[in-house]
C-alpha cells in the first residue's frame, strides 16, 4: 500500500532538515511503501517537484522513480530521522530530551520491585493490575523482574481497560476504542497494586479505579507510576510508588518507549514549539 504525503520546503525547514541550498519553494512528495511510519523497513521513495506538475499521474510517477534512486542515496539518513520523529507522533519541529535511558530505567524498575516486596512480601494477598494500554507494558516488566527476584512467590496479574469509565465520552473528538480487560481472579479482600506509566491529570487512573472496583471490594489499592508529572493533577489522585518525579509544562508530553515495540527502553520528554 502506498501513502503519499507532501511538504513544501521553506527556508526554515530547509535548514532544519539540512537539505542542500536552493530547494526552498520546491515541494517534496513522499511515497511510503507502508501505512505505518514507525515500521519502515525500506527507505521511502520521494519526488522533488517545483510548481504544479501538469503531467499525468502515471507519467509523474515514472519520472519520480527515475529521479528517486539518485536522491534516495543522498537524503536517506536525514529523511529517515524525520520519519522516525513522525513515527513518534510528533511534527518535525518537536524537540525531544531523554529523561531516562535504558540503564536507568532498569535500575528504577529494580528499585520499584524491591519497594513492592518490602510492603507485599510474597504477594499472597496481593494482585498486580496494569492499566491499558501503556501501563500493561510497565506492569509486565515489573512482574517479570519480581519473578526473577522471588521465583517461589506466585504473582497474580490482571489488566484493566478504562475506556468505558472515562469522563470524556462524547466530550472530545477523540475516538474511544476499548482494549481487552482480563481480571481472572476475584479482587475481594485483596491488596491491589495498580500500575500505569505516566500520571498526569489523574483522570485515566480514576476511570481505571472505578472499573476495577466492580470486580470486588479490595482491602487496599496502591498506585505505582513510572513518571509522576507533579502539579498537573486535576483530581485528588496520589501515587505511592514513584519511578521519577518530573515537573513539566502543558506543551510537553512524556513518552515511555519499550524494547518490544522496536527501539529500546527509555523515557522521553517531548516539547512542542
Amino acid at each position, binding site marked *: 500500500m502506498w501513502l503519499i504525503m507532501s511538504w513544501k520546503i521553506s527556508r526554515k525547514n530547509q535548514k532544519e532538515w539540512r537539505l542542500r541550498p536552493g530547494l526552498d519553494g520546491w515541494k517534496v512528495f513522499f511515497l511510503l511503501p507502508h501505512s505505518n511510519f514507525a515500521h519502515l523497513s525500506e527507505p521511502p521513495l520521494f519526488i522533488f517537484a517545483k510548481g504544479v506538475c501538469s503531467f499525468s499521474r502515471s507519467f509523474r510517477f515514472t519520472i519520480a522513480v527515475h529521479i528517486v534512486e539518485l536522491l534516495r542515496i543522498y537524503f536517506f539518513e536525514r529523511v529517515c530521522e524525520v520519519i522516525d520523529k513522525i513515527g513518534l507522533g510528533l511534527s518535525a519541529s518537536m524537540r525531544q530530551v531523554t529523561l531516562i535511558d535504558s540503564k536507568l530505567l532498569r535500575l528504577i524498575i529494580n528499585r520499584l520491585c524491591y519497594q513492592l516486596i518490602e510492603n507485599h512480601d510474597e504477594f499472597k494477598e496481593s494482585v498486580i493490575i496494569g492499566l491499558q494500554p501503556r501501563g500493561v507494558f510497565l506492569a509486565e516488566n515489573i512482574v517479570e523482574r519480581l519473578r526473577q527476584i522471588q521465583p517461589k512467590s506466585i504473582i497474580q496479574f490482571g489488566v484493566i481497560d478504562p475506556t468505558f469509565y472515562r469522563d470524556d465520552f462524547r466530550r472530545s473528538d477523540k475516538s474511544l*476504542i476499548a482494549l481487552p480487560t482480563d481480571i481472572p481472579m476475584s479482587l475481594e479482600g485483596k491488596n491491589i497494586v495498580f500500575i500505569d506509566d505516566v500520571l498526569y491529570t489523574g483522570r485515566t487512573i480514576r476511570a481505571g479505579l472505578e472499573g476495577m472496583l466492580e470486580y470486588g471490594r479490595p482491602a487496599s489499592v496502591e498506585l505505582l507510576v513510572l513518571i509522576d508529572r507533579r502539579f498537573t493533577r486535576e483530581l485528588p489522585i496520589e501515587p505511592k510508588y514513584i519511578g521519577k518525579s518530573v515537573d513539566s509544562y502543558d506543551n510537553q508530553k512524556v513518552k515511555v518507549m519499550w524494547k518490544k515495540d522496536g527501539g529500546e527502553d527509555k523515557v522521553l520528554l517531548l516539547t512542542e514549539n
Partner: protein
Amino acid sequence: MLSVKHLLGIKDLRREDIELIFSQADEFKEVLSRPIKKVPTLRDITVANLFFENSTRTRLSFELAEKRLSADVVNFSASSSSVKKGETLVDTVNNILAMKVDMVVMRHASPGAGIFLSRHINASIVNAGDGTHEHPTQALLDAFSIREKLGEVAGKKVVIVGDITHSRVAISNIYCLQKLGAEVMVCGPTTLIPKHIESMGVKVEHNLVKALEWCDVANMLRIQLERQDAGVRYFPTLREYSMQYGLDKKLLNSLSKEIVVMHPGPINRGVEITSDVADSDQSIILDQVENGVAIRMAVIFLLAQRMERRTS
C-alpha cells in the same frame, strides 16, 4: 470511529467498520462475563425502542444491550399505541424525540423506513429490521459467531438456506459475509429464491445435499409464513418443504465434514430444522443469541460516540 452516523444497513458499512464493531463486541462480551455486568458509559443517553412489528429476541437483545450500557430505555410497541388511531410514523417519532430521546432503534414493516426517518429527525437510528430490506445487527452477530467458532470469516463457505425472497436477514448476511471475504451460496426452492440474485455475487443451488457438502457453515432461515402473500403457494405443503430443504440429524451426520449450523430464530422445529440438530453440538444458535447482546452493545456504543458533543 464508525464511518456512518446511523446503522441502516450493512450496505453502507466498510470492512473496517465491521472489524471495529467486532473488536468492541469482544470487549463487551468480557463485560457480560463480569460479576457486575454493567458499564456506566451511556448513562446520559436515552434510547427509544420502536417496534412496529413483533419481536422477541431482537427487542430483548437491544433492551438488554442498552441497559448494560447504563442508558435509559423506553419501549414502544405499535399494537398498544396511537398508531392504531392513525398517527403517522414521523409524528410518532417526533413526539418521542420531543421528550429528549437521543437514539432510536426501530423495526418497521416498510423497507426503507429507517432511511426515510433519518432525513426527518436528528437522532441516531439503528435499523432492527425494515420489511424485507435489511437487518444489519443480525448479520453482524451471525458473522461474529462464525468468527468466534471458526477463527475468521474470510475464505469460509457459507450457505443460506430457506426463504431468501422474503428474508432481510439473508440480504444483510450476504453483504456482510462478502465484505469480510467469505463465499456465499443461497439454497432453496426456485420459488423462494429471487431472480438475478447471482448479480449480488452469490452462488445459487437448489439441491440441499450438494449445498451442505460444499459449505463450512449453514444458516437455516425460517419459512416466513406471515409474509407469503395470501393465495400464492410457494411450495405444495410444509411437509414437502421440510423433506427437501429441512435439516435433520441423519443428513447432518451423512456429510463428509462437520459443518456449523446457525439459525436467526425463531425456529419452526420440524420444518427447516429438527430438534436434534438445533440442540446438537454443531449448532451455535444459542451462542448467536449471546453474541447478539455484545454486538448490539458495540453498535450503540460506537454510534453514541458520533452523536453531538455534550454541552453544559
